């Protein structure tokens, strides 16, 4: 089921084009990581999706509702966590969740259960009667997610949810986001910390200078960036012979590193099986055959290195 459709989205602030011609679609249950350097336009894009900011041009449809005319309906179905936020300090956690639940039209009969569930989800049950002002920054961040959960939105928009958190709080937040992913929610999350995203994102969109320069599933992006799959073959004997056999079969310019042969190859699963058979037929003892999954950090660095291809504007004044 298609949940979100963005087409030709553009936001101008005077002569500055903050978001330029952004278009993408998201299905239910997809988790999209929005990555890019500072000033890439991530926050502006999220604020437009959250209906907080009006696009200069272009359209946003969430669950079939047009953001230009049906933004109140959209707001009922989305949960937006801004990059810098606070909650109502003078309320207790329970009161705070009750307020948001009522505001989002949650039925009074089911609201207490929702509040309990949300507090349990973000592991703040024991703090339910504490004031928000007594929470640590990490707890406020988790509580922010709890606030979104109380009305059970279909789409979560999370802008740098881990910024400013210590490692422990970051791990806790990551666990919460994993749980969300497990519940089949559609999530767009922007973050600088790419390793955070790789654990649970199904898709990524890379932004630079207001443009989405690359988007798709992580595997698709990986293939586009590296233009090949990185295979690592571990052998137990005849390393030089094995290297020659690999190069003879693939013409891929494999490299030898200890007992491992690394090669970047553009092939499918059948091709890999044939390579394995070829090595075995040559009498080479293959003890390992795996594809190296680069994490998002490496991917982004590789992308930056190939900026002329993917980010023609990057680094230019």
């Amino acid at each position, binding site marked *: 089921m298609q949940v979100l459709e963005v087409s030709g989205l*553009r936001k*101008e*602030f*005077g*002569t500055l*084009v903050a978001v*330029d*011609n952004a278009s993408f679609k998201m299905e239910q249950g997809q988790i999209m990581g929005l990555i890019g350097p500072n000033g890439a336009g991530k926050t502006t894009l999220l604020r437009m999706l*959250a*209906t*907080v*900011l*009006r696009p*200069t*041009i272009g359209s946003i449809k969430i669950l079939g509702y047009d953001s230009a005319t049906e933004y*109140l*309906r959209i*707001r*009922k179905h989305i949960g*937006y966590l*801004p990059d*810098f*936020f*606070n*909650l*109502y*300090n*003078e*309320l207790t956690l329970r*009161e705070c969740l*009750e*307020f*948001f639940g*009522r*505001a*989002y*039209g949650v039925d009074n009969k089911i609201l207490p259960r929702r509040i309990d569930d949300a507090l349990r989800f973000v592991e703040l049950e024991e703090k339910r009667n504490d004031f928000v002002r007594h929470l640590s920054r990490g707890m406020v961040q988790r509580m922010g997610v709890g*606030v979104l959960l109380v009305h059970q939105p279909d789409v979560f928009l999370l802008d740098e949810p881990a910024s400013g958190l210590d490692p422990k709080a970051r791990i806790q937040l990551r666990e919460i986001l994993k749980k969300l992913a497990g519940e089949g929610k559609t999530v767009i999350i922007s973050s600088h910390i790419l390793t955070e995203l790789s654990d649970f994102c199904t898709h990524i969109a890379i932004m630079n200078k207001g443009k989405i320069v690359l988007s798709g599933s992580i595997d698709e992006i990986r293939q586009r960036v590296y233009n090949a799959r990185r295979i690592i073959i571990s052998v137990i004997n005849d390393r030089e012979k094995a290297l020659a056999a690999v190069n003879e079969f693939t013409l891929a310019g494999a490299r030898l590193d200890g007992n491992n042969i690394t090669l970047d190859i553009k092939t499918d699963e059948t091709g890999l099986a044939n390579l394995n058979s070829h090595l075995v037929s040559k009498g080479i003892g293959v003890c390992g055959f795996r594809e190296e999954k680069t994490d998002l950090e490496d991917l982004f660095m590789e992308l930056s290195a190939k900026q002329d291809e993917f980010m023609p504007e990057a680094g230019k004044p």
Partner: protein
Amino acid sequence: MIFDNPLILRYKYIQMRPRQFWLYMTIYISILLMIFFINYTGYKNETMYSTITALFKSLFYQFLVMQILVMWIWASFSSGSAIREEVFEKTYDFFRMLPLSARTKAAGILVGKNLIALLLAAFNFVLISVFGIAGGLTPMLLFQVILTTVSVAIFANSTALLSSINTKGKKRKNEIIAFVLLAFFLGPAIINGVIAMAGFKDIETKPGYFFEFKIPVLVLASIIILYFSCWNVKGLLRKFTYEDKPLYNRPGAILFLMGYELVMLGLFYHYLTDESGGLFLRQFNLGFWLVSLTPLLMIPFASIRSYERYFEYVSFSFARSGGHINPLRMTLYSNLTLWLGLFGIWIVFAIISTFLSKQSLGENLITISVILSFYLFVLLLLEVNVVVNPSTPKIWVLLIFVFGVYVILPLILAGVLEVEGFYPHSPLGYAVYIADLTQQKFLTDMRVAMVNLMLCIPPAAVVIGRYISIINARQQMQGTP
């Protein structure tokens, strides 16, 4: 149910916690006891009151003052600080995202933020009614006083909230200082006002005129205040719905001004058409002009189409016309056309008042054209700020300085050089000049208008240059919208 509004519920949680609630109640009850003690002592010793009726009447006025302080100042301060607090506490994005109608948000703040003030006000009204009746006030006067108090409270609260939307968020300490200063300066004025009102005899039947209708003055004032409160509420709904848009759209600005002019004409009509007015008719006419010009200085600030809107307009026009846009169309879209259109509406009402007061149309048209030349210069300064501010954010400092020089320099020159011909070149000096019957001369008017028009040339050149640069910048921007 009032607490179905989630915002009111939230404020209830915050304000009605036992500790806070009883703190307010203790202060309130202490004040009540103090008032009763002082007045009763004065009555008992016959130093302040000779009769029990006089005591009750005095208590009525004292509680009326307290009511005004609670409803007009304290409540308005609370209403006006609601959005500021959201911004300052970094909860504003959540507030904006709430899927609540603008009506719910406005009502939620106006009622919720003032729950304790409203509770005290409700109790005060009971006391005011009891002491009023016991003090010999007629039920009609009591009704009129309560109507006026409530209508001004609605106006003050809605104005405070409206003016706080789009705030950048200031420190709470500054707000409290502002509140204390406001109470310090306004408090005595309110007390004196109520004492003066107490001195009026038959105020309940004293007529106010609206065109040919005679209406008790307090009722008339309340109705007019409620009329403008309705505009405030309309403004609140607009700002809570379209936060990034100006308070007035074009039809809104025109309708507001026409309504305002009509109300003012209604109030002045009786005096403008008074056959026995004689020389005063001219003063009434100028008085109407002065009052009816006031919104022309306010509406431009609340109807500004920003530089970004100009860019968007040019983008849309580009998309429609395939990459060409005439600078003239840009000028038509600009703020200047609306503002000059508003001045056109004022001219119509100024001519009507001229006819009603049987003044010379020719002379008044000359005066109107001079006022237009002043207004044009001010509008151009404002438009310079709109188009230059994005690249030079401090331009407003220079513009305010220029405006200050424009107003004050002619007065200084007139004084230092002892040449009276200078002072009509200042807007303030011109206001004095047209009020003085013996002074007005055609040549002076023309000279002032010509100087103003020449002064308009530099800001007009800047504005037109910026319009063209917006079009050029749009053409050079990468990508098509």
